[in-house]
């Protein structure tokens, strides 16, 4: 089956920051994104489990499929915008069928 190479960006970020990240994704011109809730984790700031009422440490995973160029632009902008915040970003390569969608 004929497939096309795209980039998958994944961002794990504090939930209060999600509106800022999705606004950036829109601005950069990616065709979409999908949000997932995480239920716990550990990082430099230590352990957390669910949001325990405060919502302050709740992390959201944002997945974006985009072409290489868009992905790169997004990556650069994100790393600037989110520098001060507790978050992680990583990129991998995926194959898609409908090239027009991404």
């Amino acid at each position, binding site marked *: 089956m004929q497939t096309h190479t795209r980039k998958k960006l994944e961002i794990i970020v504090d939930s209060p920051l999600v509106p800022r990240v999705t606004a950036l994704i829109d601005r950069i011109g990616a065709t979409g994104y999908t949000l997932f809730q995480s239920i716990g984790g550990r990082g430099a700031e*230590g*352990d957390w489990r*669910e949001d*325990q*009422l*405060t919502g*302050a440490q709740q992390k959201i995973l944002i997945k974006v499929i985009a072409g290489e160029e868009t992905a790169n632009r997004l990556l650069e902008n994100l790393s600037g915008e989110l520098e001060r915040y507790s978050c992680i970003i990583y990129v991998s390569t995926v194959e898609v069928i409908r090239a027009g969608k991404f």
Partner: protein
Amino acid sequence: MLDAVAMAGSNLLSPMVLFFVLGFLAAMARSDLSIPEPIAKAISLYLMLAIGFKGGASLASHGVDATMIGVAAAGIAMSFLLPMLAFILARGLARLSPIDAAAVAAHYGSISIVTFVSASEFLRMLGVSFEGYMVAVMALMETPAIISGLWLARRYLQRPDSGRGQVLHEVFLNGSVVLLTGAFIIGAVSGTKGMTTVAPFIDAPFKGVLCFFLLDMGLIAANRLRGTRAISPGLAAFGILMPLIGGAIGVLIGSVMGLSPGGTALFGVLSASASYIAVPAAMRLALPEANPAVYLTVSLAITFPFNLTVGIPLYLAAARWITGA
């Protein structure tokens, strides 16, 4: 004094405090007991809706008190100014960095809804009446502290204020502020008739729901305490001293403003309590350099349990003593 001890005892043996203790012990022993998160959030919303509505309905039936405007203004001023005091104490006693101290300070200027709710149930249990509009005062005290905290922090930060719009928005349209205020207004508009309609939902089961919620608060407090390396002896001392000082100031001002003994005690409780909903979310956004482990732990795991068990009866005893009741 004897009176205060007896009151403290009856507070400690109320189902509400006992369920908090149960949750605390369960989490300390690493039991897997846990309340699903959406449920905890829903109960928290329920408590705000119910307390807001009841406050508004009580205002409608008892009318606006002459002292109300004064108390409201005093509440706003307290919320603005307590963070200054808290900042100094957090720097000196707890030896926090300026940024962490500012974030912590914002929490102590603001208020804890569950502490207020537990205190008003305690008053009801003892048959002590209080002004219905104290709920509105609580809503007013929720956010000014955030601005003070950010102002304190800004003096130590060399950076442009990105996202300030979002923060102000977050502050004034925070869900808990909106729901509390909105339910208060609806309660005031619907009055006694509306209260009769919804009483079987917001009044009758209220105490039981609060027990359930305090079970969860116990779990959360102990989990924070267990999981953290953020708590130093100095910070722990801060977490107990600050509510005592805040509570004393609050009781003093409340009595000066002419509140009833019950109202005075509640003003003390509001001043003594530290936020765990509106402020952390705002700090996360506006002050990401501050360590959430510090401010959440001291607020949820030190000050909240202290107020719930020891503080509330203490502030009431002080209020009775100072108002001569």
